[in-house]
């Protein structure tokens, strides 16, 4: 057994996993407020990346300015989605809101395709592709940066949920009716969650856009992101981080063992197995609350 190689697989699995977490944090934020997995999070991530590119390439701003500006734009978009679409669905069955997010995803994909076309564009963050060696272990720099961003967002949200506004958001996640009864604006809270999730989408879009290019395929991150969110418990940010790491490692190490046996493609199978097994064996995930249904 080659321990160096195995550690390399594991460490890169952790880093890749944290990039899944980066995506999944957005899902968790919306799940907390709206009780639905946001099927449009992939679309939002892609739009986030395109907005950064539009500001950087088409407008010509430097990236350090384009990225925060895109975050502001997407923050507004998140609020807008609540205002225009979600508010009308208040009190309707949750499955309707789920369908709405699906429709939104299709809409976002169609819009980006119409505006920016189908050819892949590169993010060009300027992160070096020179290998980084930790002893004998090779590490990708952009993955390291992305993992750092994921952890930074994790810490930021943990702190945010201790502030008064954060506590009100958690109250909304617990009980809409009780929130209204003490004058909490549930609508604004839900809007804020969508806005924050859209900002997370910019971060995920930039990192993943750098790794795999900016095109329609970015929206497919939803599948792995959902798997991570479900494994983590859907409403737990800590869960999303830990589940991301688990999925990344299992996928990376597992594929190395399985690929020679099944002749490739085992990554997808591993992800599918994790999702299906989680739902069957531990439907509330690793850190999920147990009373997640709400009227």
């Amino acid at each position: 057994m080659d321990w160096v190689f195995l550690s390399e697989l594991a460490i890169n699995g952790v880093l890749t996993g944290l990039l899944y977490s980066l995506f999944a944090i957005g899902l968790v934020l919306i799940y907390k407020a709206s009780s639905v997995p946001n099927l449009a999070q992939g679309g939002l991530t892609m739009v986030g990346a395109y907005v950064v590119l539009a500001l950087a390439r088409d407008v010509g701003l430097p990236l350090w300015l384009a990225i925060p500006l895109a975050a502001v734009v997407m923050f507004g978009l998140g609020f807008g989605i609540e205002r225009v679409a979600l508010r009308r669905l208040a009190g309707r069955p949750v499955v309707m809101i789920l369908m709405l997010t699906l429709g939104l995803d299709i809409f976002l994909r169609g819009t980006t395709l119409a505006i920016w076309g189908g050819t892949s564009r590169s993010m060009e963050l300027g992160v070096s592709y020179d290998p980084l060696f930790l002893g004998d272990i090779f590490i990708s720099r952009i993955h390291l940066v992305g993992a750092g961003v994921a952890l930074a967002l994790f810490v930021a949200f943990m702190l945010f949920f201790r502030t008064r506004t954060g506590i009100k958001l958690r109250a909304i996640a617990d009980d809409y009716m009780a929130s209204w009864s003490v004058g909490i604006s549930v609508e604004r809270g839900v809007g804020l969650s969508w806005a924050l999730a859209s900002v997370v989408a910019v971060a995920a879009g930039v990192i993943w856009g750098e790794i795999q290019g900016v095109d329609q395929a970015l929206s497919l991150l939803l599948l792995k992101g959902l798997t991570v969110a479900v494994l983590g418990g859907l409403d737990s940010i800590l869960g999303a981080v830990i589940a991301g790491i688990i999925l990344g490692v299992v996928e990376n190490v597992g594929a190395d063992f399985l690929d020679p046996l099944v002749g490739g493609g085992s990554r997808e199978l591993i992800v599918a197995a994790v999702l299906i097994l989680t739902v069957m064996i531990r439907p509330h995930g690793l850190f999920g609350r147990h009373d997640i249904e709400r009227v």
Partner: protein
Amino acid sequence: MQEKVEAQNILSMNSVEVLYDNVILAIKGVSVQVPKGEMIALLGSNGAGKSTTLKAISGLLKAERGRISRGEITFQGTDITEAPAQKRVEMGICHVIEGRRVFEHLTPDENLTAAAPRGMSRSTLNAEKDKIYAYFPRLVERKNSQAGYLSGGEQQMLAIGRALVTQPKLLMLDEPSLGLAPFLVEEIFGILQKINKDEGLSVLLVEQNALAALEIVSQGYLIENGRVVMHGTAEALKSNSDIQEFYLGGGETDFHNVKHYSRRKRWLS
């Protein structure tokens, strides 16, 4: 004369009719007055329309696809019939909803924080919290545990405390005694009375436990089938033979009602 009466009432509800889903007529012309600084009870059995009356006043009807189709509600002389729920809380109406719905995954302390009005300074909030903990000393030692694990009595105290953070002038409570042991009901009602005395807080109390309620209020209304069928001072109601038979009786029939009631509750909540 009429105007003078109006001025003394902090809340005045006149011939209010409520429709759910545009078809279900839940209350049919209910009129209720709450004199400033007094405690008033709203009594009645299952499905009489007590909760609907409170939701009409707090504006929470909208969340259940209900609306006021006739009549009007004024609070401190202002027409609030169409005002959004949030506005009404800002004006000083707070509704402790049925079933002590505390924020289960928050701590009691966070439950109080969550209810802080926008713009309330940290020091005011802390002062409010101190006051609430003084009224409900049982909450103090549990204030940093998860609210979902508090006992029923503690949760009801927390739900009331949470409402007090909004600094209400009119506090409305929907069956706070439900499912609580008699000594707890007595304790909670005693605290309500104290708050009412100390702060001049007006209280509208919905209860099926008429016996306990009539001990602390000055007047009561009896609702049946969406209509007020009786209104009088607590003393008059206590000595009324109908009330005695149906609501103060105790004994077997009452016990069955209670059981049936708690079962139905689960479906509704």
